[in-house]
């Protein structure tokens, strides 16, 4: 298992939190160390000032051999809270007084009391300047030593030593540190949830995008509905790019689907046309043979009935086959507005029987360069289908007009939508899903549109179904 969480949902807030904690801790640490440093410096300065202030009276005490005077001065008003251990040494390097009298006894030699302290060179000519020096921390906590040579006229009479440790202000330092930690904790208590929330907010668009991308490939791009983050940030740009990519993908899918369908329908058309031709030739011969046979001799009643039966069967075959074989070509008459009116007239009886409301809108003012018969057939089929599909009380809307270099036919009806699985096979002959329909209407429409170089499309929503046909004007028909 990896220690770093993989998801930005955790990683982003976590790194924000870690940054906040690290910042707070290092701030507290730096401030604490700085404070400790300042406290030490202050202590040294104060000790030096105090030593200088006391020096005159201490010289007097040394000269007059007044132990009590020196002691009462060194012990100060607060015996136990004293900042430093003060030791007064006489000229013979023996302890004269100290504010820790039990440890530094009167008359004890300095060397015995503080073996680690280097022997000060008592030089009458140049007394060593008073200064605070850091030393190796001793067992008693002494870290710094102040040495102040006490001189009277005529030379040094003794030395004042202060042993400084961190103990006096450790409590104060601890207080400062605890205060710092508390403030840090309080700030973190606010920062951490805020950082966490902010991190989540920053990461959430990425999450959305990632979740959406994960669905690409497993789901149909056209059905993919994703919440894409909207912002001007890089993530927003990414989201927009992704949307564009999804749209392109959907378009490509749709195009592929269309092509597949067109190819399939074209193949079916070719097969139908081939079969029709193959059937039509012998069929013609057979019908002609029967006709010839009838005319050539007198037939008994039984034979005549048999021939009639064969004749009718063959005629039925021819009817069925020619229905499959749509021929858009061959009619050179141009489509005029009256052709469209004819369609309406033809429909009128059927319309009268149903209670469908028809909106009829023809935007064609003159003849256009399209064969009249197939277009009439196409419109008629679509119209009939629409009336059928619109339930009683429904509405049908028919629009025909030119749009640019196309003749646009739009037939819309209310009613139940066409299921998606039917849409895929809608233009095939005898579709499985509509066994009771005659089955060739839309097939013929498709064939006509294809042969005229146009396109037919269907869109079906919950309330209406719309067939849309676009036929190019003035172009040569394609097969």
């Amino acid at each position: 298992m990896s220690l770093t969480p993989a998801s930005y949902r955790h990683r982003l807030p976590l790194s924000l939190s870690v940054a906040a904690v690290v910042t707070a801790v290092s701030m507290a640490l730096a401030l604490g160390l700085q404070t400790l440093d300042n406290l030490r410096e202050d202590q040294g300065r104060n000790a030096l000032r105090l030593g200088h202030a006391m020096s005159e009276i201490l010289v007097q005490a040394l000269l007059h051999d007044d132990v009590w005077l020196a002691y009462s001065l060194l012990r100060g008003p607060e015996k136990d809270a004293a900042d430093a251990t003060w030791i007064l040494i006489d000229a013979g390097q023996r302890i004269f007084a100290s504010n820790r009298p039990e440890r530094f006894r009167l008359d004890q030699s300095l060397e015995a009391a503080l073996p680690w302290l280097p022997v000060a060179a008592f030089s009458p000519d140049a007394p060593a300047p008073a200064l605070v020096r850091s030393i190796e921390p001793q067992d008693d906590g002494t870290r710094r030593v102040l040495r102040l040579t006490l001189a009277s006229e005529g030379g040094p009479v003794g030395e004042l030593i202060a042993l400084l440790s961190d103990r006096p202000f450790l409590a104060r330092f601890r207080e400062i540190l605890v205060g710092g930690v508390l403030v840090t904790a309080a700030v973190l208590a606010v920062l951490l949830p805020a950082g966490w929330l902010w991190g989540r907010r920053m990461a959430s668009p990425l999450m959305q995008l990632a979740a959406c991308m994960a669905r690409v490939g497993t789901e149909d791009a056209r059905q993919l509905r994703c919440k894409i983050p909207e912002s001007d940030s890089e993530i927003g740009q990414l989201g927009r790019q992704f949307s564009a990519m999804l749209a392109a993908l959907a378009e490509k899918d749709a195009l592929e689907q269309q092509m597949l369908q067109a190819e399939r329908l074209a193949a079916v058309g070719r097969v139908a046309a081939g079969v029709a031709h193959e059937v039509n030739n012998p069929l013609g011969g057979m019908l002609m043979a029967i006709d010839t046979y009838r005319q050539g001799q007198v037939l008994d009643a039984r034979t005549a009935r048999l021939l009639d039966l064969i004749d009718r069967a063959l005629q039925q075959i021819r009817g069925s086959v020619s229905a499959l074989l749509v021929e858009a070509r061959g009619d050179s008459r141009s489509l005029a507005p009256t052709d469209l009116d004819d369609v309406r007239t033809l429909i009128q009886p059927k319309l009268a029987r149903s209670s469908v409301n028809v909106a009829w809108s023809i935007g064609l003012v003159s003849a256009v360069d399209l064969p009249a018969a197939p277009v009439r057939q196409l419109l008629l089929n679509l119209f009939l289908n629409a009336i059928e599909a619109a339930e009683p009380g429904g509405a049908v809307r028919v629009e025909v007009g030119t749009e640019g270099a196309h003749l646009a036919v739009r037939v819309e009806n209310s009613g139940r939508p066409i299921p998606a699985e039917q849409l895929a096979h809608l233009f095939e002959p005898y579709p499985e899903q509509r066994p009771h329909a005659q089955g060739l209407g839309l097939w013929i429409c498709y064939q006509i549109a294809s042969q005229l170089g146009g396109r037919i499309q269907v869109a079906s929503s919950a309330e209406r179904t719309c067939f849309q046909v676009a036929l190019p004007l003035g172009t040569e028909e394609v097969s």
Partner: protein
Amino acid sequence: MLTRRDLLRAIGLLGISPSGWCEPIATGAAQDPSAGERPALRFGLTPVILDDRVAFLRLWASWLERQLGRPVVFIQRARYREIMDLLLRGGLDLAWICGYPYVQHRRELTLVAVPRFQGQPRYRSYVIVGADAPFTALRDLQGRLFAWSDPDSNSGYLYPRFALLEQGQDPDRFFGRTFFTWGHRHTVEAVAEGLTDGAAVDSYVWETLARRVPELTRRTRIILRSPLFGFPPLAGAPGLAPTDLQAIRRILLRQDQDPIGRQLLDELNLDGFAPAEPALFDDIAAMAERLDTGRRT
């Protein structure tokens, strides 16, 4: 301890109380109209008592002023000798001094009164050591640190030296090192804080401290109690007028009869003041003489 409340009460009594003790002052002032112009009575104090309590001394001075009908000024010095010099040279009218300097100047000084402590005008010298120190007798302190109170003190200097001499020791060489603390209270502190191994102290001061600051005396232990000596007396200067002497003596001897005076005595941890005869200090004189001869030989 003298609290702020006591102080206020005392001042209140001094100011407005019509009680009996006020009357002598009123009559005194009436009898002697020049009272306000009379020079202040100069009263010297030495560390034989706990002389560091300013508020108490003010109250006592004010009480004495009322009684005497003239201003009273306490004059304090760090060392016995300075007070003695002032007293002998006319800088003071009277002083509370130690029995040792008194016997040295017996002829020039007059005894005004002697305090009564624990029922009698006597006290002792205590030799004390740290509470946890191993010493049990004076001889254990040989070669050790020792603190004297004052070279003119009987209990804090004369008696311990005499005791050593009696034991056949040389008081100047017996201890490893000695020093003066210039006050009995300091002496107790020096022992309690470990500055010295042993010290000699006034029994009255030690007992008073034991009552008032028990945490201080608890850190010390008495290893030697001297015989009784005459309590440090109040001595009149050579030039003190007999009438003044009588007036002061009368007031002091009656201080324990007066409610405020009684309170002040309680603060001092004393029973009262008694008339004194020079013979009370004969023991001290004998010790001084013995030491002087000891030094000469």
